[in-house]
């Protein structure tokens, strides 16, 4: 009888609830008319339940500028006074204001921003718990599922995504209009540049609201070919969430990722890393790797262990191959390519194939390869993969093998899992495999290999777009990407280091990776202010990565998972399925909101497409800007060569980036970003003009003075703020002129405003250089502002620079700090910390964008410096900087994390100049001044 009683109880409870609902359904709908419609930067995440956006709130209008060949979003926010029971958003076609050309509204997709409640904030941003937008649900689906409602007082974001890509065919590939053209703008059919206008209609049934749309398309092109390489890990659990665990399902994922210029890591749903499915595997990858939007793809590997097959009587047959470093170098002909430790390393290796047979009948069952007893991966299968891929390249007459970037999980983050031996085994055997392949490739004209019982012959005479020798170089050029930051113990083993983004946090750290011809980095939950894909971080933390990559010459970015659909059991970390994908269950990794997925399952809305997130949009937008900068770099190289002058785009990119990030720390300033993006779009068109205007150099003296050098062709006059440039740096006879332009940061807002005219067209280039810079010498702060914060002897005194023999060019005073050795007994406990706390921070840092501290290191050696900070409201220290302090003059540049510094303030900096053994010697530093670059 217990069951019936329980059900009656439920009945009574529900009766009460439902009664209330029935009464509320009779309320009047008159309150729907007062809906505030506003907009803001598309890099801002407007929370559903926050309303302190007055400083970034803009009018009800959609106004954006785009290059050709990209996607760009705009957002409108609807904030009703009373409940909205229905709304719909449609966009008209846009019309060119001069030619009448139509920008089809099919190119504008409308999404509803879906909110997820974040109860805890883990990312190092100034975020608070609340309802954050992430999923972008196509509005048609929202209307179909009757989820187009807004509660009174809530913000509801509408995301409009514009697309200026060339005309696409039914497969989503651009239609080629001129197959002989190599430049995208000639090869494909783009919308014309210029200004288009139209209307967004917000329909609330009781009334409608119109919002004007202005789209400005400039003469700059985002290449259809992806030059940034990506590896975004596929977690097949996403297929289950999408209720489509099939090849169709995995292709849906990959097709969607391709649209975002991203490469997944799994092309085939049902396969085993063995010869029997190799053909299917290669063909599945081919679909993507042959697409210009796919820049890289990984190889799979087999890591077969001996099977516990009790009825077999396994016989191990050892086949030993030997190769040496010399034979390897001979093949690669890359003497000097690797660091010296590579050559010095004693890794003349003997690697061994092991054949495990079943039933004693001689059938091959599994292969494995070890190096000196350490299991690596199946080298034989690896060679078969590459061989089968070469065959495919010949069949398709297209060599895309150079896009292969293997990254094996068995040596993922080797420092963390103590996999040194494994790294050595894998890296050595992979090179051995390449050498072996090279040998086989060159052994005869049409070499062959037996794969799955079939002879696979490579007949290079069938290829017209590449030669056998070129393929040989491609094979030898395949490089492993290893997710590790530089460690001396791995020197010589790893070719392509792929550190986390925070390991690019200083020039010193970046130097570790300069030797690589292709640099990679990755994020797997890194927190703001470095690159971050968390839900609470503003879109800038994902998008700015593309800018930083262009600046630091990083080609590849790796992310561990874009499609994980599970949550973790807090108790033991076990993964379990989730019930609600959009508004809950957002933690795939402990203490990280949104880490591990970037898309949402479309099946939940019966869509045959994936549902993107705002984070995914931002990642793509950043990669598109990377392409714009890539394009600018190409143009600058071409112009440089053309005019015979040695310059490139690195300085102007560095200059644009200086307003967006410092080292690896991103500045959360949407206004500055919008300005930098506008500058970037102008930069491209200026370089491409007949004037070939290039900004060939840039410097900042860290005291509020910026200097630029601008090149224009002969016969063109360039102006800044209406005044002709006259300060000549260099005259290139018969070609052009390089001018100098000095921008002192003395005003509240400082900018460079260049114009020039050629062929009847006036070009503009505007770049915000920043707010006022202010120098605070000793006097604004003093010796008493410095105190020890660990067990050391410490002294601080004001001194005269001339007397001390430092800062001869600037003179004045400095604070001399003498930091004694740590008094702790145990080496492990030794620390040398001192604090810098000043009223200056409270009064002057509120509008500080960057803070520069000039420090003179008078110690005998370089110091490993860490700078942390304490916010007054916080109980923990945050890290700002970790960099070596060279002997002599240094300039420390720190960017305070985003947030409201008006109500809170920086209490102090904490400087660490020694830990452990390093804390046993005295350090002498001079603090010269503090320079603030304001917003």
């Amino acid at each position, binding site marked *: 009888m217990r069951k019936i009683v329980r059900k009656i109880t439920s009945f009574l409870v529900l009766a009460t609830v*439902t009664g209330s609902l029935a*009464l509320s359904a009779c309320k009047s709908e008159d309150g729907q008319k007062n809906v505030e419609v506003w907009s803001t930067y598309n890099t801002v995440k407007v929370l559903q339940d926050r309303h302190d956006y007055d400083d970034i709130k803009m009018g009800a209008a959609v106004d954006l500028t785009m290059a050709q060949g990209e996607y760009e979003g705009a957002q409108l926010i609807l904030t009703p006074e009373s409940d909205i029971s229905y709304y719909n958003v449609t966009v008209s076609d846009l019309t060119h204001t001069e030619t009448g050309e139509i920008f089809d509204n099919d190119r504008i997709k409308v999404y509803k921003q879906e909110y997820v409640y974040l109860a805890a904030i883990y990312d190092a941003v100034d975020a608070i718990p609340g309802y954050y937008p992430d999923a972008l649900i196509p509005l048609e689906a929202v209307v179909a599922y009757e989820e187009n409602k807004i509660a009174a007082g809530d913000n509801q974001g509408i995301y409009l995504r514009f697309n200026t890509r060339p005309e696409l065919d039914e497969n989503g590939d651009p239609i080629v209009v001129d197959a002989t053209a190599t430049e995208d703008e000639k090869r494909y059919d783009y919308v014309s540049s210029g200004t288009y206008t139209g209307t967004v209609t917000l329909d609330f049934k009781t009334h409608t609201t119109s919002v004007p749309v202005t789209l400005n398309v400039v003469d700059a092109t985002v290449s259809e070919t992806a030059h940034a390489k990506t590896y975004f890990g596929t977690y097949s659990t996403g297929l289950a969430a999408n209720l489509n*665990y099939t090849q169709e399902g995995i292709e849906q994922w990959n097709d969607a990722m391709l649209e975002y210029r991203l490469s997944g890591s799994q092309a085939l749903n049902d396969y085993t890393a063995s010869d029997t499915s190799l053909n299917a595997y290669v063909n599945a990858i081919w679909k993507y790797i042959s697409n210009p939007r796919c820049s890289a793809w990984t190889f799979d590997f087999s890591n077969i262990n001996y099977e516990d097959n009790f009825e077999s009587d396994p016989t191990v047959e050892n086949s030993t191959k030997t190769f040496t470093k010399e034979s390897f170098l001979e093949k690669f002909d890359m003497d000097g390519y690797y660091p010296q430790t590579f050559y010095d390393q004693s890794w003349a290796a003997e690697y061994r194939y092991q054949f495990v047979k079943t039933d004693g009948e001689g059938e091959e069952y599994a292969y494995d390869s070890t190096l000196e007893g350490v299991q690596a991966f199946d080298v034989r299968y690896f060679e078969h993969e590459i061989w089968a891929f070469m065959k495919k390249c010949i069949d398709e007459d297209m060599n895309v093998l150079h896009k292969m970037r293997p990254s094996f999980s068995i040596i993922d983050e080797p420092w963390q899992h103590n996999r040194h031996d494994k790294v050595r085994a894998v890296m050595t055997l992979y090179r051995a495999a390449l050498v072996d392949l090279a040998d086989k490739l060159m052994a005869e004209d049409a070499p062959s290999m037996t794969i799955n019982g079939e002879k696979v012959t490579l007949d290079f005479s069938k290829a017209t777009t590449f030669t056998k020798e070129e393929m040989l170089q491609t094979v030898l050029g395949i490089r492993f990407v290893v997710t590790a930051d530089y460690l001396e113990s791995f020197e010589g083993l790893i070719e392509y280091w792929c550190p986390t983004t925070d390991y690019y946090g200083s020039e010193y750290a970046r130097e570790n990776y300069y030797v690589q011809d292709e640099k990679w980095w990755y994020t797997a939950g890194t927190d703001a202010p470095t690159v971050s894909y968390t839900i609470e971080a503003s879109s800038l933390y994902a998008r700015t990565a593309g800018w930083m990559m262009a600046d630091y010459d990083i080609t590849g970015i790796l992310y561990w998972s874009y499609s994980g659909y599970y949550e973790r059991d807090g108790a033991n970390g076990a993964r379990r399925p989730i*019930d609600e994908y959009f508004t809950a269950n957002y933690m795939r990794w402990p203490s990280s909101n949104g880490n591990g997925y970037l898309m949402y399952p479309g099946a939940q809305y019966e869509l045959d497409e994936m549902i993107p997130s705002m984070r995914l949009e931002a990642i793509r937008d950043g990669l598109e800007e990377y392409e714009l900068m890539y394009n600018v770099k190409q143009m600058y190289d071409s112009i440089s060569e053309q005019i015979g002058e040695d310059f490139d785009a690195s300085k102007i990119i560095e200059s644009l980036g200086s307003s967006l990030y410092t080292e690896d720390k991103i500045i959360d300033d949407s206004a500055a970003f919008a300005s930098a993006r506008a500058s970037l779009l102008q930069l491209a068109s200026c370089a491409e003009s007949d004037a070939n205007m290039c900004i060939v150099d840039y410097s900042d003296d860290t005291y509020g003075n910026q200097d630029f050098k601008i090149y224009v062709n002969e016969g063109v006059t360039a102006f800044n703020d209406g005044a002709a440039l006259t300060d000549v740096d260099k005259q290139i006879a018969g070609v052009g002129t390089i001018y100098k332009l000095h921008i002192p940061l003395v005003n509240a807002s400082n900018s460079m405003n260049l114009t020039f005219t050629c062929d009847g067209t006036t070009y503009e280039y505007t770049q915000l250089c920043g707010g006022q810079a202010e120098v605070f010498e000793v006097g604004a702060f003093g010796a008493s502002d410095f105190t020890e914060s660990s067990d050391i002897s410490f002294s601080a005194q004001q001194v005269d620079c001339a007397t001390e023999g430092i800062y001869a060019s600037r003179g004045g005073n400095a604070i001399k700090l003498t930091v004694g050795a740590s008094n702790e007994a145990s080496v492990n406990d030794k620390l040398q910390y001192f604090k810098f706390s000043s009223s200056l921070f409270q009064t002057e840092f509120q509008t500080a964008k960057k803070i520069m501290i000039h420090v003179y290191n008078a110690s005998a050696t370089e110091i490993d410096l860490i700078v942390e900070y304490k916010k007054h409201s916080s109980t923990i220290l945050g890290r700002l900087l970790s960099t070596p302090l060279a002997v002599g003059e240094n300039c420390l540049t720190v960017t305070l994390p985003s947030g409201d510094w008006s109500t809170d303030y920086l209490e102090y900096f904490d400087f660490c100049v020694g830990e452990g053994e390093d804390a046993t010697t005295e350090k002498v530093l001079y603090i010269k001044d503090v320079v603030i670059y304001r917003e």
Partner: protein
Amino acid sequence: MKKYIKRISLLLAGILTLGMLSACKDGSASEDGASSEQVQAVSKVSNEYRVELANFEQWKPDFSLIRIMENFGKVSRNKDEKYVKSGSYSAKLQPTGGIYAYRKPQMYIPFFSEYYNFNYEDFTYADYIDLWIYNANDRDMPVNVGLVSAITSEEAITTFPAETFYLKANSWNLVTYYVDFNAMSINQSISLSQIMQIKGLYLEFESSNTVDVNDAPVYYVDDVNLYYKDEPNTLKDVSEILEFTHEEGSDVYEICDFEHVYQKYVFSTYVKNAACIPTLTIVNAENEGMDGFLATSGSSVLKIEIPAGQTKGGSWTELILSSKIMSAFYNEFVFDSAKQKPIVPAAELKNYYIAYDIYCVGEVENDYKFAHYLYDSQNNTYARTEGAPNLMIKPDQWQTWSWSLYDVASLEYTRNSILDPTDPTKYNKGVAEAYQEYKKSYDKYAADPLTAGYGDRITDAGQFRILYSEHVGEDRVVYIDNIRVYKA
């Protein structure tokens, strides 16, 4: 946060709302107005202790909670009324499986959701589950139905043994799955606490071995219900469940002849190639459509439908007879391991045989054979046959495989491995040392004349495994009956 009230509550809410209509000033109907069908459903609920698990009329939670396992295939919402049992929608299933998958296409419906606020995990009073499945294919298709014992991750579950149902082609089938924990316990340990935490209902379909979802078979599922009863489910000791048929004075001792209800779960299977996973059902031999085909014992036989694979000999399939049965049988008829006393005297071991009958339909290749192993529970190892290791299969006839208990020797395989210490392919030092230790355990037998003759023969049997290798070509059917021990 959106919350979805469990189905039963919605139905009840609908009833209540009808009664509240008059309270609205303007007389408009509530959004939750109930239909007459819903009214009837409510009255059924209170009478039959029914909980509607899913009717697929709304995406959330019915579809959003469906969990499909690796390489399952596709699930989508159907609104073609031909394939809707009730309401407007049903779930369309296209199970593909995978050529390289390790299991058949499997999905489950969970019994608990914190987000959607329901919990049906307590199966203490669960009676049965029924669901409608439309088999939209041109032949009868099997579906395995069972209960989920644990959800180990987002893509892995452990299960209780499944029951196989055959779905008639091109028609609706009401699948009624009766919860029988005692029968399941023959093959798997089950506790009362597990009964109170049943995680879900799983369905397993035949793998179509295709990567193209459009080539997959199609099913439609609708109206999944759970029913309760007044009497609680209890767990009996194995000894209360098992019934070994043995007539007084007979020389035949039944191990498993498929005549008892509990025997529907006695076999499990293991094969690495999911394409080769067989379908096992207990059928009446006379109903198999073969003239003169009869069971060799009673009327029921175990039918094994063996799908063809991709590579001859590429994998081995194991049919595993539960260790509980073998152990119980051995303890009752061969050797009392608790008392360490033989029931069959050592001197008579040679006269006793373990045996079964097998019938293979249709032609097979000349070297098609069945291999066998018996697990020694006492020493945690397998015995290998000696003398008659395999049975070469002949088509369209009953054959009997037998194996003298005298030859059921433990560590036989191991002994082979250490025969020649100079032969590196056979000698294994570690195993040799283990064998020496193992031999010591038989010292106790040597002291007692009754047991001395047992030597290293099995005294406590575990799983009995019947193996066959992957074949290519057409699928085939094999019947097994009358697993027994007899005295020659």
